[in-house]
């Protein structure tokens, strides 16, 4: 039995893998989403006059800059295996704070700073509670949802208009290039998306986010800074939500405690449509961008349709969503392992 040491050296075969396709398929969900998005866009062009105009696509960016920003934060949270329901409310709170402070004649840049800080702090608090007292993310952030909107309503139940120079000019500002227009907010969102994608792929924080999402306990045992990562992820999400609020109030210069209700769902939907697993650990930011575009495109189709009654609008959205998810699912299908 002690032959263990006196083994005749056996030349070892290169180890091949079953589930080899698991590797190649890592990008499939995103690619599928991309293709299907293309198809959908094509359908739009086929059915609606003026849909082919590239500006329509850019308008999707313009109209959804805030959603994209929020979804970016959400992507980090979901990748880390969590969820953040508070984003919609934080966004609303952001608009309300901005509006009220501006009304009081504060300097716009100071205001933006304050809004962002508030958002980040809320996120931080949530992250801390979730990690250190292991409270389920869903609940901690649900409380966050109540809290943020509560504070917003405390500040003002009435909608507060924004008349500040800087704000209104940024709102009307359009960056022209080659006959096309983009709003500053859209630009900010896009830049943020790129930055986030890089962060996820090329920073330790990014990779740790994936690791924690993959298996938090293993990550802990591997000596990864789970605590820091978790808290940071939620902080980031809060920050993005607040920024979303700022961008939103650029587009619609008003602070309103009722805005962004249900936006958390839109954001989550965008992320998941982008092929990210809600269970965490797998997905890409590109997917999220696509997810937002898909949702935006659906909305655009509806406005182009122009004849839908309220309920058909809803059914139409659901229908498109269903068709999309179904196709995506069929394309990326694989058997249980």
């Amino acid at each position: 039995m002690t032959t263990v040491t006196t083994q005749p050296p056996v030349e070892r075969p290169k180890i091949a893998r079953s589930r080899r396709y698991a590797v190649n398929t890592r990008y499939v969900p995103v690619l599928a989403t991309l293709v299907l998005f293309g198809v959908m866009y094509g359908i739009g062009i086929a059915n609606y006059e003026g849909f082919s105009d590239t500006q329509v696509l850019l308008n999707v960016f313009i109209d959804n800059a805030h959603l994209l920003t929020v979804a970016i934060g959400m992507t980090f949270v979901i990748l880390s295996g969590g969820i953040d329901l508070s984003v919609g409310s934080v966004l609303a709170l952001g608009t309300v704070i901005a509006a009220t402070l501006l009304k009081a004649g504060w300097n716009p840049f100071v205001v933006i700073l304050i809004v962002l800080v508030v958002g980040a702090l809320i996120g931080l608090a949530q992250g801390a509670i979730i990690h250190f007292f292991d409270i389920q993310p869903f609940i901690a952030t649900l409380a966050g949802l109540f809290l943020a909107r509560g504070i917003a309503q405390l500040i003002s139940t009435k909608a507060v208009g924004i008349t500040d120079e800087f704000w209104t000019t940024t709102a009307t500002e359009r960056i022209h290039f080659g006959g096309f227009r983009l709003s500053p907010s859209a630009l900010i969102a896009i830049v943020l998306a790129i930055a986030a994608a890089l962060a996820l792929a090329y920073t330790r924080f990014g990779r740790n986010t994936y690791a924690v999402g993959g298996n938090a306990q293993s990550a802990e045992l591997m000596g990864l800074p789970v605590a820091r990562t978790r808290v940071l992820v939620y902080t980031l999400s809060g920050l993005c939500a607040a920024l979303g609020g700022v961008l939103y109030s650029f587009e619609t210069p008003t602070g309103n405690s009722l805005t962004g209700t249900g936006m958390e769902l839109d954001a989550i939907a965008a992320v998941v449509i982008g092929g990210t697993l809600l269970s965490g650990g797998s997905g890409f930011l590109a997917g999220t961008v696509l997810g937002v575009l898909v949702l935006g495109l659906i909305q655009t189709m509806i406005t182009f349709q122009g004849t839908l009654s309220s309920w058909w609008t809803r059914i139409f959205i659901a229908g498109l969503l269903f068709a999309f998810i179904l196709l995506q699912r069929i394309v990326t299908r694989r058997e249980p392992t």
Partner: protein
Amino acid sequence: MGEPTPAQEPILEMTGVGKVFPGVVALADVDFRLYPGEVHALMGENGAGKSTLIKVLTGVYDIDAGSIRLNGEDVRFSGPLQAQRAGISTVYQEVNLCPNLSVAENIFIGREPRRFGAIQWRRMRRRSAELLRGLDLDLDVTALLGSYSIAIQQMVAIARAVDISAKVLILDEPTSSLDASEVEQLFAVMRRLKREGLAIVFVSHFLDQVYDIADRMTVLRNGKRVGEYRVAELPQAQLVSAMIGKELAVLEELEEQEKPSTAALEQGEPVLAATGVARKGAIEPFSLTIHQGEVVGLAGLLGSGRTELARLLFAADKADQGTFSFGTDTVSMRGPRTAMEHGVAFSSENRRTEGVVGELTVRENIVLALQASRGWARPIPRGRQDELVDKYIKALDIRPANPDTQVRNLSGGNQQKVLLARWLITEPKLLIVDEPTRGIDVGAKAEIQRLLAQLSGDGMAVLFISAELEEVLRLSHKIAVLRDRRLVEQLDNTDDVDVDRILATIASGSATGEDS
């Protein structure tokens, strides 16, 4: 008992360590000393407290009593991160890596090579490939870890720890599913590190390995320290009795078990006959017939396709060609359920994710398969449950013997026993066991082997996979040898068959077995 008079100060010293879990005293007043440049084996039965000691040391659990001194100063880590920073790198029992990340990342995550804060992927891949080659592993490091078998994942975990290790390297049952040559690779590395003055803690239930690599050992029993010995000064028999606490001639039994008489062979009805079964990327077409009361052992190197073959027979993975026939009738395998309906049972090598359900209790885990086959509408009466559960808790000596403890709180070996029990109570016609003795202590191992032998005596067919060839030889009537995912030969386990013969077959890969 021979206290060593070491040249230098211990690098790590734990004194009076205690750890209590609700209902269990995992550690009580345990002392442990580790010197630079030694390999120190931590020995004990399943549930003795080895892993707990390691987890307490590295701050996974907070310590209830006692003190830890590293380099002469008191330390108390709040988690593996701090332990790692202090120069202690650990491979915990079971694979604790991220299956959703690439192999390269799993080795380097947290310490990725960076330039201007940006991770240098190419460099990371190159270096991890090199590291693995150091362990004689040639993997695609960009592939997801989850796509590799447990054994390979275990090697990756080792590669990571070895690369991190600064002062102390802790290996908790790193070899449980490695085969001889991997173990050899690992030992080579350990010897090198030892020479470089590293202190290494090594946990294993393979006595030969311990005697092969370790200098000193500390023996635990029921959470208490039995003693600290020089390996050279402690014969295996004494070690075993120290671990088990009674003079038990386990070893003799292990040796004695004479090969099962191949006479019984072929008489029995064929239970399962697989013809031309294959699955792309997993295993080439093979044909295998298992008869009543027959024990078929699978031999092969790591990654040779043993697990794949087993998974196909249980339809855990769907075969994309070939036919299965049970007794006389041919069956289309739709999934595990079909296999179970025809009396096949399969205990996976991957007990953590494919075996036990950690959140459920011991009882629930044991009855799970039986219940599933009965369907939800026909619950197993509580009385019957207790009967079965108690029977196997005793038979396999599962500790703690309380059927209502959560399985996740059981020690690794005990979890393995629970998994085995789950399938035994279904009284299968064919029992497929992939690495059933993984992480199981000597006593229990003998117990399980006896059990399997007995069951096959009573007419149950067994497909037996183990990285430990000796074990395979000891139990099997027939040995199917795999190589490069091909079933290359099926030998009757006659007296002239031994480890070397099989290794030779593997090496030569003489394909007498049918293939496409």
